């Protein structure tokens, strides 16, 4: 623990209570990883505020002291983004877990950042509504974490990612001041700072109240499982479905390695073990007849594109089983080896067949097991490499293969992350997609929010790759105390 962080412990205890400041090594090591086992850092101090005002007090204290802070939700992220080292305080928001308002008439909800995604959906379901973004970790991940990462999920193909659903935010800035972005109706007060904040990976502040859009639950759903003899055929079927004009709610792909990992686990879903790939396609909507007709069209396309069989879930139980296999696939891969590199590249959909074959070739060259489970409809790949981290030679091969996969995706017109974020894990790849000026612009934006770059330091933007930037930082903070209430419009109209 650093001296600076340690010196703050009494003051932190004063703010949140001794019980919610974790200093013992045994407690701190439980926060040394997120969902990605390849990065570990032990935070200097862990603090768990229970109210917005406590967050404000903690952030003011850290600002005055110049100590770095890393926000964290449930720690299910897959980029090493929510890891803090010994010099930093890890600020965990899981105690801020109240659903503050659920307004079925206007189809909105306002929640604290520690509310678990699935809990919000369950609360909305009582009103015939849903919170659509559904990351695979939705039973554990928090809305605050979803906002920080601009999380996606299988059903984002039709319904959009987190950014498309966030209307307004109350944010505690790095200096401890409180501000609001967006409005309950979704229209910004000027430039769209909600859009800028969502996906900022904890570098701009901490969202303490999040207003999201809810959408009607579909009344009719059809879930199809199609299996293919080759990866290429499955990839081509994806493009054919999208080109048909039907927008499936979800269009997911799993390759043979992934299928077998799932089928060997407690999450076995009845996927055909001999298939080169399966597609899980869901069509939903308001009217049963229309959904049935769209599902029939999708089935015809899948068969025309080489599906050996297409099976429709007969009932809700079978649908849930098919989805459980998909959503727990990452967990099932834990059977293959203890360590797992999880990639998150995105490619243009039409490049999927070629890129999948390239990845297959890279895996063969480096003698590695790569399992693909991903959001095919969005072109968002998750080639996952299972390996034994105790073997240095093997680890080096994994590193080389990961970099080759990433470069192949970028060559195909893609990018390095679609929903997991950059964090620590993909920092080294950022210069592959952005030049020095673009990276410098991102860093300059960060410094507008956080001139000292104390929030989640060392993440997202590789500082060494930034060109010099002349832009200024934020105006000096006002003398007035922070408050969340609207101010007189004339007072700050610019």
């Amino acid at each position, binding site marked *: 623990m650093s001296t600076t962080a340690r010196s703050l412990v009494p003051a932190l205890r004063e703010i949140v209570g001794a019980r919610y400041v974790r200093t013992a090594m045994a407690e701190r090591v439980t926060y040394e990883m997120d969902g990605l086992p390849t990065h570990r850092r032990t935070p200097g101090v862990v603090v768990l505020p229970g109210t917005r005002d406590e967050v404000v007090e903690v952030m003011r204290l850290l600002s005055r002291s110049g100590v770095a802070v890393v926000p964290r939700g449930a720690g299910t992220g897959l980029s090493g983004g929510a890891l803090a080292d010994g010099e930093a305080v890890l600020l965990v928001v899981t105690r801020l877990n109240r659903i503050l308002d659920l307004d079925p008439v206007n189809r909105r909800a306002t929640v604290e950042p520690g509310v678990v995604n699935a809990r919000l959906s369950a609360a909305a379901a009582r009103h015939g509504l849903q919170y659509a973004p559904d990351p695979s970790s939705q039973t554990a991940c928090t809305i605050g974490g979803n906002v920080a990462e601009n999380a996606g999920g299988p059903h984002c193909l039709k319904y959009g990612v987190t950014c498309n659903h966030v209307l307004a935010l109350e944010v505690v800035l790095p200096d401890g*001041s409180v501000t609001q972005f967006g409005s309950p109706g979704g229209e910004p007060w000027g430039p769209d700072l909600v859009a800028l904040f969502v996906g900022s990976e904890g570098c701009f502040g901490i969202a303490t109240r999040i207003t999201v859009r809810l959408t*009607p639950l579909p009344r009719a759903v059809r879930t199809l499982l199609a299996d293919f003899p080759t990866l290429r055929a499955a990839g081509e079927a994806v493009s054919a479905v*999208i080109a048909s004009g039907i927008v499936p709610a979800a269009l997911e792909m799993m390759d043979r390695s992934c299928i077998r990992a799932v089928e060997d686990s407690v999450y076995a879903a009845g996927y055909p073990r001999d298939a080169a790939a399966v597609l899980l396609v869901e069509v939903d909507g308001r009217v049963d007849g229309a959904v049935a007709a769209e599902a029939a069209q999708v089935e015809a396309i899948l068969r025309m594109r080489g599906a050996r069989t297409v099976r429709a879930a007969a009932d809700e139980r079978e649908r849930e089983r098919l989805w459980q296999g998909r959503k727990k696939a990452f967990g099932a891969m834990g059977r293959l080896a203890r360590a797992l590199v999880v990639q998150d590249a995105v490619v243009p959909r039409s490049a999927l067949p070629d890129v999948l074959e390239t990845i297959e070739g890279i895996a063969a060259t480096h003698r590695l097991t790569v399992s693909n489970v991903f959001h095919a409809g969005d072109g968002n790949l998750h080639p996952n490499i299972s390996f034994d981290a105790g073997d240095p030679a093997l680890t080096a091969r994994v590193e080389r293969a990961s970099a080759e996969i990433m470069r192949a995706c970028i060559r195909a017109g893609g990018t390095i992350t679609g929903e997991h974020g950059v964090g620590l894990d993909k920092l080294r790849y950022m210069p592959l997609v952005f030049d020095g*000026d673009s990276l410098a612009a991102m860093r300059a934006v960060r410094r507008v929010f956080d001139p000292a770059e104390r929030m989640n330091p060392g993440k997202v933007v590789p500082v060494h790759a930034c060109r010099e930037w002349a832009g*200024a930082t934020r105006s000096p903070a006002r003398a007035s105390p922070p408050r969340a209430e609207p101010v007189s419009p004339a007072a700050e109209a*610019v």
Partner: protein
Amino acid sequence: MSIADKLRALLGRDAILEITAPPDQTPRVAPDSPDAVALLLGTAQEEGWRVRVEGQGSWMPTDAPAEVALTTRRLDRIPAIHPQDLSATAEAGVGLDRLRQHLADRGVWLALDPPGLAGRTIGSIVATATAGPLRQGFGPVRDHLLGVTFVTGDGRLVQGGGRVMKNVAGFDLTRLQAGSFGAFGVVVLVHLRLHALPRADRTMVLRGSRETVAAAAEEVRQAGAAPAALEVLSPALGRSEQWTLAVRLAGSVPLVEGEEGVIRGVAGGRLEPLRAEEAQALWTWAAQGFAARPLTFRVGGLPEGAEELLDLIQHQVGDEWISASPGTGTIRWGGETTVDRLQRLRRTLAALEVPLTLERAPWELRRAVGHFGAYREGVGPLVAGLRRTFDPGARLVVATGDAGGG
């Protein structure tokens, strides 16, 4: 050496389209590449020129005081359309009508129907974030952007996002550009998210008093229907003696037929289908009608409060030209009004937590009122900081109202 001579030396003799009429007498420059825009703005930074950015000049009046008028009209290439990926890349000066035609030829569709004339540039639509009725089904302008390239006020080319469907690599400079009114640079290239051209596209209407159409709109919303557009149009905009509720359904044939069945079941079955040419005329005028008025603004409230907002707007500035989306709570207003009335309305709305964005007006009114305003505590310094980041010399003339905006 005059500014015009310097510009010719910098960008070539053909770069200047004209010297605008007195008293403005500003050289109107049309760079033909993103690099030329960067060169121009880098020079403007060094020379201390204020630069007014224009598209076709059909939406925002080209009346802001500046030493140089930069028009994007020669940035008119469409480098790529990828129907299989449902994406396209277009330079900022491409007119929406031309882009639509190219996309339709390839079986794809940009689900944006902004107010204004058909030839408005894509850069103008992005900078002003002016979505139209299709916002109900397809979201605001930012949701259609996959990536942008823009030039900062001091001449740097910056890239945000990319051309893939999902992208969280780095901070989101793409969506920040949507609705920034050019305060954070000049958008020169956009990567767009497309949809398959709808296999079916139908519009149903109901005409009546404002209360009648509002009640019917609420019934459609409560029925759980998912229309592409659900819009209430004032008589002038609906070209009728009464108010119009227009419901547009677009997508696959089964989807549209299913939704049509739902719509027929509400409002006592009084929503009547339009023929294709009637529907096209309705939506075209709903967009182009705003171009006939000197000023437009939008407000964003809650669906439940839409009627009260309409009452308030009617009381303060009249309700002749209104297009309201009861499903999203967005209301667009067109007409003529004064600085005082507009400022009073903005203050009243702010107290209700409803932002008013001034989309289009003569410069003097823009300068006095600002496109944005009524920021919450702490937002003003952030916006000013972003402004200085992307335009450190305050060369871009934008009516944000702040010290650097012009």
